């Protein structure tokens, strides 16, 4: 369903994703794990037509997202890591806009919106402007919105970020439900290893832009000789904290590039 070959993305001289290859089969739940700044979101952006790869190839359901953008977009749904709601609209209106943009028939859209807003406990506040929501409520709305249409592939970029345990459970059981009943392929990232262990069929570990391990949770634990996925993850990626901010020289380079007319 997803086939990635030698994918790379550079921002200026910095390589965020470096020669990554993997495949995700139809109906599979694939967890993409890695420390902060490893290149997970950048990979997802390339898979979802938001960024052009520097090199390498991608196929989504047999389509190249950089040449068949619209066709590819019809195949997937996505919950972003960063906010993507319209704060001036109400929760209900955000769902409505999404339904129209994704060609969900009006009636179906209304029924499903109601169902999902109830599931994620936002129904009572559906007519409030989203900018008045708490962080977790916004997050829940993003997720509810992501499930409004049924795509072939669902990308979830740290969907549980900032969610309470109740909502996390709701989310994962819903993910499993759509995966089993509608055979939706799921590509997810998370920093909670227990979640990945519980939900994912297969796992890929990325660090510094390179894919360093791939396999079932069981296989990865065996490969590293560890008892939990968390230990396996630490064994693979080391225990140093990643420096997210670019160094001063990098920033100067970026700046110079901006003025020399290079597009970021």
């Amino acid at each position, binding site marked *: 369903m997803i086939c990635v070959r030698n994918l790379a993305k550079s921002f200026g001289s910095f390589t965020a994703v470096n020669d990554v290859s993997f495949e995700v089969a139809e109906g599979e739940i694939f967890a993409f794990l890695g420390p902060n700044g490893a290149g997970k979101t950048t990979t997802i*952006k390339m898979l979802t*037509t938001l960024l052009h790869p520097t090199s390498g190839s991608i196929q989504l359901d047999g389509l190249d997202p950089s040449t068949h953008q619209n066709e590819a977009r019809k195949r997937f749904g996505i919950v972003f890591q960063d906010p993507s709601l*319209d704060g001036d609209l109400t929760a209900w209106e955000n769902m409505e806009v999404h339904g129209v943009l994704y060609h969900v028939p009006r009636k179906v859209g209304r029924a499903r919106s109601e169902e999902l807003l109830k599931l994620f406990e936002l129904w009572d506040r559906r007519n409030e402007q989203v900018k008045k929501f708490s962080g977790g409520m916004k997050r829940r709305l993003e997720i509810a919105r992501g499930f409004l249409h049924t795509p072939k592939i669902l990308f979830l970029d740290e969907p549980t970020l900032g969610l309470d345990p109740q909502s996390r459970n709701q989310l994962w059981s819903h993910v499993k439900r759509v995966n089993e009943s509608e055979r939706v392929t799921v590509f997810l990232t998370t920093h909670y290893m227990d979640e990945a262990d519980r939900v994912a069929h297969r796992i890929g570990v990325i660090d510094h832009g390179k894919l360093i391990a791939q396999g079932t949770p069981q296989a990865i634990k065996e490969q590293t000789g560890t008892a939990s996925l968390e230990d396996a993850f630490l064994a693979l990626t080391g225990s140093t904290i990643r420096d997210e901010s670019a160094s001063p020289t990098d920033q100067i380079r970026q700046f110079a590039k901006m003025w020399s007319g290079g597009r970021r």
Partner: protein
Amino acid sequence: MSAIYILWLRELKRYVRSHAQIVASLGQPMLYLLVLGFGLSPVFKRAGYGDYLQFVAPGVIGMSVLFSSIFSGLGLLWDRQFGFLKETLVAPVSRLQIMIGRTLGGATVAVIQGLLVTVISMIAGFRPAHLINVPLALGFMVAIAIVFSALGVAIGSSLQDMQGFQLIMNFLVMPIYFLSGAMFPLVGLGPVLTFVTHLDPLAYGIDGMRAMLLGQSAFNPLVDLAVLAAVGAVLLAVGAYRFSKIEI
């Protein structure tokens, strides 16, 4: 089609809900109308051009349409910052439709703003000479709104963040306004200024409005219309192209 409609509707809802912004954006035209309209009136009359308030009102209406369309085009930058842009960019809808929805939404808001300023100028004492032509003046307002909403989207698609905003205001929007003949008649300006004002699309829009509302114009209203249509088509194409190339 429905995607265009829903994005258009979204722009309208945002406008209606931003009370503070509506009031603020009416303040400036009001200031121009009252201070300039009454302040310059005696000089203008002595120069033999008639009533300045009558003359400047279409200019101030044009100004509010200009500002409001450019701002809503630049609203793209807010959507980029607050993330909603991503949601529309990954949707299975062609970017052309998304761009058109936004542009028409922005243009509609700008026309509403222009109508509000029209009402304010009429309260201040502005009287159209030919009431029959008022709908035609509205047509020119719509044309101005579309031209500059498209320009706003083209610029908004090309900038990464709000940093360039001040630059755009000072070196593009204000010159467009000042060189449009909104505040002074485009006659006897000397070759350089005449040439520059002829390059300003807003000059044709305001001239068209003046032709309809006051019966006086520097160009031919048909020329005005043709220029606005041509510039509008080019800017829509540029805006659509730039929009289709956005990466996040």
